[in-house]
């Protein structure tokens, strides 16, 4: 369980990133923070592994304030996936995945063997293990980033716009892969994105943020779509977009779902 207790972050120059943000992320659930730039979503994420220290309030993991924990040890206990993969360009794929186990004292040989297993787990060919990150595609690099985050089998995964820099088709593949992994692993995930569709697809719970980390609405994806709290959320999730306004039309005795432009998107099954 991760708790944000009225955390704030004001930078020395007076810039406010986050103001009085409170949230409980239950264990084994994935919570998506979604908002545009300036919403403080990445800042909130980085407070969990102490890459950013709050200027007010506290962040606690299983009841223990992270400020009291050794930052290096804390970070090694949390899986972290970054937008551009954040892989070390001078290490092979296997060594990148094995980073945290090796830092924790696992023998390199064993860590590499386990890394090869993880490579398959995230849907990559083990032969890629000896390559350097620059030899992989963007989507492959992101998969390696996910494998690295899983290498020490952490309870918590922090994902900072992990699929933001890849093309839409690959992004969709990566999202499906993550959903499949999460169904297996049941990690506690905080996922940050500016993409509403991604949030609705991946979150058990979605938190829509305004500027400075003010919560506009939180709920399950269905709740957010069914009843947007206000115009901001309605606008942000695109509740009025044609592809979200589905109606049902009878065709040959079947119920066909049709979007706002009249284009059929699927068939309802009773």
């Amino acid at each position, binding site marked *: 369980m991760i708790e944000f207790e009225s955390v704030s972050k004001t930078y020395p120059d007076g810039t406010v990133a986050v103001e009085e943000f409170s949230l409980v992320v239950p264990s084994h659930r994935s919570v998506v923070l979604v908002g545009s730039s300036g919403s403080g979503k990445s800042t909130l994420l980085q407070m969990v592994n102490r890459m950013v220290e709050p200027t007010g309030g506290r962040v606690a993991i299983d009841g223990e304030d992270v400020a009291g924990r050794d930052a*290096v040890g804390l*970070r*090694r206990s949390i899986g972290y996936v970054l937008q551009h993969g*954040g892989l070390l*360009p*001078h290490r092979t794929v296997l060594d990148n995945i094995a980073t*945290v186990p090796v830092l924790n004292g696992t023998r390199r040989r064993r860590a590499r063997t386990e890394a090869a297993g993880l490579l398959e787990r995230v849907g990559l060919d083990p032969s890629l293990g000896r390559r350097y990150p620059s*030899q992989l595609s963007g989507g*492959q690099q992101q998969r390696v980033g996910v494998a690295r985050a899983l290498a020490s089998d952490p309870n918590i995964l922090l994902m900072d716009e992990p699929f933001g820099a890849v093309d839409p088709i690959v992004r969709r593949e990566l999202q499906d892969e993550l959903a499949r992994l999460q169904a297996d692993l049941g990690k506690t995930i905080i996922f940050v994105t500016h993409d509403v569709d991604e949030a609705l697809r991946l979150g058990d719970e979605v938190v829509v943020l305004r500027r400075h980390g003010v919560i506009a609405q939180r709920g399950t994806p269905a709740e957010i779509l069914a009843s947007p709290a206000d115009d901001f959320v309605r606008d942000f999730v695109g509740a009025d977009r044609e592809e979200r306004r589905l109606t049902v039309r009878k065709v040959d005795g079947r119920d066909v779902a049709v979007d706002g432009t009249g284009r059929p998107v699927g068939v309802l099954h009773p």
Partner: protein
Amino acid sequence: MTWLALSWEYVLELTRDHLLLSVPAVLLSVLIAVPIGRLANRRRVLGGLVTGAATLMYAIPALPLLIIIPAVFGFPLRSSATVVTALTVYGVALLVRTAADAFGSVDAEVRDAALAVGHSPRSVFWHVDLPLAIPVLLSGTRVVAVSTVSLVTIGALIGVPGLGSLLTDGFQRGITEEVAVGVVATIVVALVLDGLLLAAGRALTPWARTPRRSAKTAGGAR
């Protein structure tokens, strides 16, 4: 080629002396310039002052330097320690700015990512900053090596033997061939050291010479 035929053993001996003066000076320059460069990279104001001062050292004329160093460090005037120290001063002067740039060339995003996944700051230096700075550091070191090998010849002016001895001796005794041999041997030594550094650099940075990905051959994601 009569002079060389008679004196090749002497030339080999001087080449060895030359290497014993220049290699330690290059190593010391790297060992001193890299930490200063790192500091300069982390602290802009201090760094600007230090690199500026270091670069000025290169403007000190060689002969006075060879006389100041024994006075400051207490070495005998005609000792290899004096020559190595003088060459190290020049080497550091040449290398400090490049060393600062080398650390500046490391992608801040990569450093942050390394910290975020659990490298300690010390481990980031050894495992991220230093290896990624190698290509730029190495190009600076190659300049220092070549420059040092050619500067070692001034040691002959204060009577410390090296290939420079062939130049001074050849001039005094009017043996053109001896001077020519001294010049050529110095260039050969510089080229060999440069080649060795280039090879070492390639061995140390295997990631830098891998072919870039081509979308068609990389495959693997299902």
